[in-house]
């Protein structure tokens, strides 16, 4: 019986294009990734239709989490020395008794959420381990509490620069926590804030959507 010879096909598949694409994607992700700064608390921000971008320099940020703990941070991507100046100024006005090394540590520290009395022991811990350090939050009351002084002294350090004031709150936080933060700003004669939110689209059919569409077509 004549045997039917099945031609032996090579199982070798050329994967070069596939690999090319894979590396292209890899390059894209490397370029597009911006590591978010580490924060001592996990915050889920609410959504809003606002499209204004978040500044990364010359801004003060107050964060509050779902349990009402309040954190303060100075945003200064461009010039880390600003943060050093702030803590140095704080050290003088509030008699914190910080050492040079502790003040240098503040430069790399994420948001601070301890009362003034606990600041020295927090800054004695390297900034990289702050997220494991249990921070009780900055004490607040209706008059602004210690947050008032943080804001006042930080604003004083920036003297003359146009600062932005960011408020980042957790979805589940209660309104009184937000109000107390606002009060601390108000006591410093600051009335204009930017609340950090995640972007969502304008609802279809709403007046806002119509306005935005008109602006878009008018702009071209």
């Amino acid at each position, binding site marked *: 019986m004549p045997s039917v010879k099945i031609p032996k096909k090579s199982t070798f598949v050329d994967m070069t294009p596939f690999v090319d694409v894979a590396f292209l994607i890899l390059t894209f992700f*490397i370029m597009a990734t911006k*590591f978010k700064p580490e924060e001592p608390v996990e915050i889920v921000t609410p*959504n809003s239709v*606002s499209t204004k*971008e978040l500044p990364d320099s010359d801004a003060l940020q107050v964060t509050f989490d779902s349990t009402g703990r309040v954190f303060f941070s100075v945003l200064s991507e461009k010039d880390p020395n600003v943060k050093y100046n702030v803590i140095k100024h704080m050290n003088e006005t509030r008699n914190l008794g910080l050492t040079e090394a502790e003040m240098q540590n503040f430069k790399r520290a994420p948001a601070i959420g301890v009362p003034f009395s606990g600041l020295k022991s927090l800054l004695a811990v390297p900034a990289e381990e702050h997220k494991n350090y249990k921070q009780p939050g900055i004490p607040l009351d209706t008059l602004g509490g210690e947050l008032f002084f943080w804001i006042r002294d930080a604003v004083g350090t920036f003297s003359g620069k146009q600062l932005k004031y960011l408020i980042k709150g957790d979805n589940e936080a209660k*309104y009184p926590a937000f109000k107390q933060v606002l009060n601390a700003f108000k006591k410093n004669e600051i009335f204009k804030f930017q609340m950090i939110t995640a972007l969502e689209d304008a609802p279809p059919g709403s007046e*806002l959507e119509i306005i935005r569409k008109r602006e878009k077509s008018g702009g071209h």
Partner: protein
Amino acid sequence: MASIEEGGGGGHKKGPGVKKAKKLSTHLDMTPMVDLGFLLITFFIFTTTMSSPTTMELYMPKDTDKDDEQNKAKESGALTVMLSKNNQIYYYEGQLKEDASNFLSTNFNPATGIRKVLIDKKKSVIEAHQHDAGCEKIWAKNNGDKKSCLDKDLVVVIKPGELATYKNTVDILDEMTITNIKRYAMVDLFEAEKTLIDKTEGN
């Protein structure tokens, strides 16, 4: 796996006295490189945050006790929105009546909730609009847009309660942007409103 292979290279005729050069394979195993590549892709996909955060502007008024510094709102154009727990919203138009008959409740439902209330209110304010001297100023501010004055009497007063979440507060401010309401203020609840909400919620 992917590899670079150099084709045949035949054509050399063997002959006497021709030394045969040892042919090295150019076949390169790229498997480890590709493995690493995909590992990195996976890593970057997981760590990357695609939606960059945005900011929403909020202007608060200066606290003032002086009567003449406070902004007066026309009763016909006022809408008071109160936020309570469990995403519940209470609202009333104009002034709260003694018998609380205009005290209504709604929620954040995009189709039937507070947005509809705001749109309806805006519509009725625009219908009731009467031209007065203040309009000229508003026109001038908006490059002579005559429509800009129509809703000038509309003022929404936002009153988040103690149990309202931050999300609710941001959402209601967002509704102002969505429905294009220009005049709104965030203030505290009155005692009368507080008790009314407590009574409605049954505690």
